[in-house]
């Protein structure tokens, strides 16, 4: 039986987080009552003229720079004609043959580079609600700026498709040009899929699955479509080039339109908008504005701070997290302690990706920094650090308000030994259990010592001391 290989490319639409729409000054805010974020320009009334939002051009160039693209020095807008009620002008202003960015790439963790053909700017369409036998049209989203990122057919597995999309999401969030929320539609993609016998070069006939709005759906749709095509090829039938949609309920893909109804968009230059010229100065200015990108940042955390890769990836997941980490670890001896505090204790208080992205934590990075410095200076032990951090997370108080001078400095070695001896004497059963081979029995004695020292002793040290004393 022939084994087949996936050949896949993605077209990803990302809504830019500008204040205003691409061609008029209406707000881009999500939601709002229907048709309340509209004006004559974005509902396509005759005689109105579009005016390009400068920030849209800047954001698209930033997206290009962050994905290793060439930035076109001369670019223009074009009209893409189609008749559908979500598009009041009956054409979408987009870019056809002179996109703002070209020839970029995104690198995956397996070292493969997914090449980007282009990134262009365009306007989003309105939203249609089909109900009660009619179509309800809301143009609030009409004219919201989008970038479309088109990849080459370099993707070879569902995992690669997911990682590619995750990387795009991460990069765009980091450079602050979009929130890339798939569930709110600010990031969505079309997946082009074909299969070919393993080891061959020639591409098979492809289908396009439209409008994937979650990672899970994309993976399921791809899985179904790959199997559907393999079944066809194995039984000697041809894959028909067509556009398909994913049906969530039945977990399958179904045909929307075939090649014969393929759109004839009759692109031509948008005569109402002048040429876009991008100077070296503008490109350099925007390059300077770009923050350190997550992949590079993660590498730096591993090399400079000695963090394990898993930690480095978690701390570069969102911009606010990395900013917090960098502020909290300023000047500390071991940034790994800060990483542990964040990943272990702070993350567990944040439910879901949204909470992590906002990273609204009661503890300021300065206070976490001060707490870790107390550990660095030997003034407190790890267990006190942990309990204090919990209190800080509850109250937002500074460590100086929660740890008294008495608590600092750990426990006098003589007193600690005495406490250990007392605990051993008070727990003869645990001692004999431990000597009988039950290692866990030691925990009971340890607990008694920690209680006696009000948690100030270092648990590891106590454990060592207890073993010594018992075995004597």
């Amino acid at each position: 039986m022939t084994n087949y290989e996936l050949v896949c490319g993605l077209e990803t639409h990302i809504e830019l987080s500008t204040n205003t729409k691409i061609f008029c000054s209406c707000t881009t805010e999500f939601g709002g009552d229907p048709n309340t974020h509209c004006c004559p320009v974005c509902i396509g009334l005759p005689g109105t003229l579009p005016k390009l939002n400068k920030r849209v051009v800047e954001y698209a160039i930033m997206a290009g720079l962050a994905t290793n693209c060439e930035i076109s020095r001369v670019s223009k807008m074009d009209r893409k004609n189609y008749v559908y009620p979500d598009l009041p002008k009956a054409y979408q202003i987009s870019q056809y043959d002179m996109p703002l960015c070209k020839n970029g790439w995104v690198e995956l963790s397996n070292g493969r580079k997914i090449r980007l053909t282009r990134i262009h700017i365009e306007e989003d369409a309105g939203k249609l609600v089909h109900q009660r036998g009619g179509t309800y049209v809301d143009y609030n989203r009409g004219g919201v700026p989008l970038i479309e990122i088109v990849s080459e057919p370099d993707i070879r597995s569902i995992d690669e498709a997911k990682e590619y999309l995750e990387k795009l999401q991460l990069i765009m969030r980091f450079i602050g040009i979009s929130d890339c929320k798939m569930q709110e539609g600010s990031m969505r993609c079309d997946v082009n899929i074909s299969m070919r016998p393993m080891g061959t070069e020639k591409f098979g006939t492809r289908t396009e699955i439209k409008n994937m709005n979650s990672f899970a759906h994309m993976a399921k749709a791809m899985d179904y479509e790959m199997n559907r095509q393999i079944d066809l090829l194995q039984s000697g039938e041809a894959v028909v080039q067509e556009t398909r949609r994913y049906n969530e309920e039945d977990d399958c893909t179904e045909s929307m339109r075939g090649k014969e109804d393929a759109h004839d968009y009759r692109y031509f230059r948008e005569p109402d908008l002048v040429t876009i010229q991008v100077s070296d100065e503008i490109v350099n200015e925007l390059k300077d504005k770009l923050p350190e990108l997550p992949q590079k940042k993660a590498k730096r955390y591993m090399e400079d701070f000695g963090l394990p890769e898993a930690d480095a990836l978690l701390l570069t997941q969102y911009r606010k997290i990395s900013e917090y980490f960098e502020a909290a670890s300023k000047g500390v001896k071991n940034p790994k302690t800060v990483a542990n505090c964040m990943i272990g204790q702070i993350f567990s208080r944040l439910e879901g990706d949204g909470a992590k992205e906002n990273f609204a934590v009661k503890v300021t990075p300065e206070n976490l920094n001060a707490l870790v410095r107390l550990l660095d200076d030997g003034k407190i032990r790890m267990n006190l650090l942990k309990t204090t951090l919990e209190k800080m997370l509850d109250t937002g108080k500074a460590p100086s308000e929660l740890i008294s001078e008495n608590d600092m400095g750990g426990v006098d070695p003589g007193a600690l030994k005495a406490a250990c001896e007392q605990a051993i004497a008070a727990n003869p059963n645990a001692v004999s259990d431990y000597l009988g081979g039950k290692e866990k029995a030691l925990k009971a004695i340890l607990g008694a010592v920690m209680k006696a020292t009000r948690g100030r002793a270092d648990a590891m040290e106590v454990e060592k001391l207890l073993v010594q004393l018992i075995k004597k």
Partner: protein
Amino acid sequence: MVTHEEILNIANLAKLSVSPEELDELTKDMNEIIGFADTINAACPQASDFDNINGLSNAFREDIVVPSYDREEILKNAESRDDGYFLVKKRM
């Protein structure tokens, strides 16, 4: 020469229905329009960039929100409306 088939295809893309009489007339008109464009092209063959005839570039707008129109104004000319939405015939 523009053919009947091309006119029908364009009409179809524009969701227009064209009667046989109209088809003849439209084809004739379209040929005249294109002939007119050919005349202009022939008159100044050295000009290449009709796209950007003024040589203008970078007319941008700052990203500052201006209040949108009142919804009543937006929906004023709608043939049909419901609940703040434009209402159109279901298609596809």
